[in-house]
């Protein structure tokens, strides 16, 4: 059982990191932390796959939830009290990717990241899950824990908005 779990996790590791990275707004350090915390939850039995959905959608849901927890912590750190604490402890971290990493990313990737950042969070999430992770709309709905109708709406609106931001011609060819 544990062997099977480890094999599943290994297969999904890279895509899971990509999803964590999306959930963390492109912050590599935070994405790594989120993924590690998600693994820890799984190993300690704090997250358990009941079998209601596929392992992939369940695991992506765990990562998404863990990223939201991390975001709440981040918001606390950015609050007035948190800033005061950082000043006292002198502990600060720049969430932006390093300049060397920025150079490594090609223009297309940076353009997409900038465009997704301008979309509402749910539209960006569903587009990532469908185009990047190759999930179906119903699988995306399971990850995002919303209805299929809502996901479809976010998907259509998101695509239209993304096209206008990326300035790509809408395709209607059949």
């Amino acid at each position, binding site marked *: 059982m544990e062997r099977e779990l480890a094999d599943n996790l290994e297969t999904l590791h890279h895509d899971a990191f990509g999803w964590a990275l999306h959930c963390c707004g492109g912050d590599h350090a935070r994405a790594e932390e989120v993924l590690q915390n998600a693994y820890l939850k799984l190993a300690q039995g704090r997250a358990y796959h009941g079998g209601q959905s596929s392992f992939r959608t369940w695991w992506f849901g765990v990562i998404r939830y863990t990223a939201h927890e991390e975001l709440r912590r981040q918001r606390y750190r950015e609050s007035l009290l948190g800033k005061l604490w950082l000043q006292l402890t002198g502990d600060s971290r720049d969430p932006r990717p390093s300049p060397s990493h920025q150079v490594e990313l090609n223009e297309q990737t940076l353009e997409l990241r900038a465009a997704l950042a301008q979309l509402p969070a749910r539209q960006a999430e569903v587009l990532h899950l469908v*185009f990047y992770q190759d999930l179906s709309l119903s699988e995306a709905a399971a990850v995002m824990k919303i209805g299929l109708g809502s996901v479809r709406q976010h998907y259509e609106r998101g695509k239209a908005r993304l096209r206008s931001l990326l300035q790509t011609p809408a395709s209607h060819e059949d």
Partner: protein
Amino acid sequence: MKTDPDHDLRPFFQAQRRADHSEAPLWNPRLLESAHKPKQASWILRVGLPATAAAVLAVSLWMPSTPTSQTHLSEALPVLLDAPSEPLFASLEPSAFTSPSDFLLPAHLSIQLP
């Protein structure tokens, strides 16, 4: 023949996917193994601690029932009430003391010591 209606968007995501995969941290199965260790420790705490407490309680309950050197203890203690028994208030003389305000008391409340 049907073409992909989203062919204009896919290359952007595929490029991002490739870039992210090259940046992803290496898979380390020991992440899962090391996470099991605290669980083992907590199992020891959950079972070992109550077992130790129960053993200590059992020993403490068993200890008084064992024959001890009680005779030696009674010999070591000082002897109490070794004087011969006497009547209570024997040292007090009957109605040896009268207070000046005794006349204020009602007659039936006056107490006579034996």
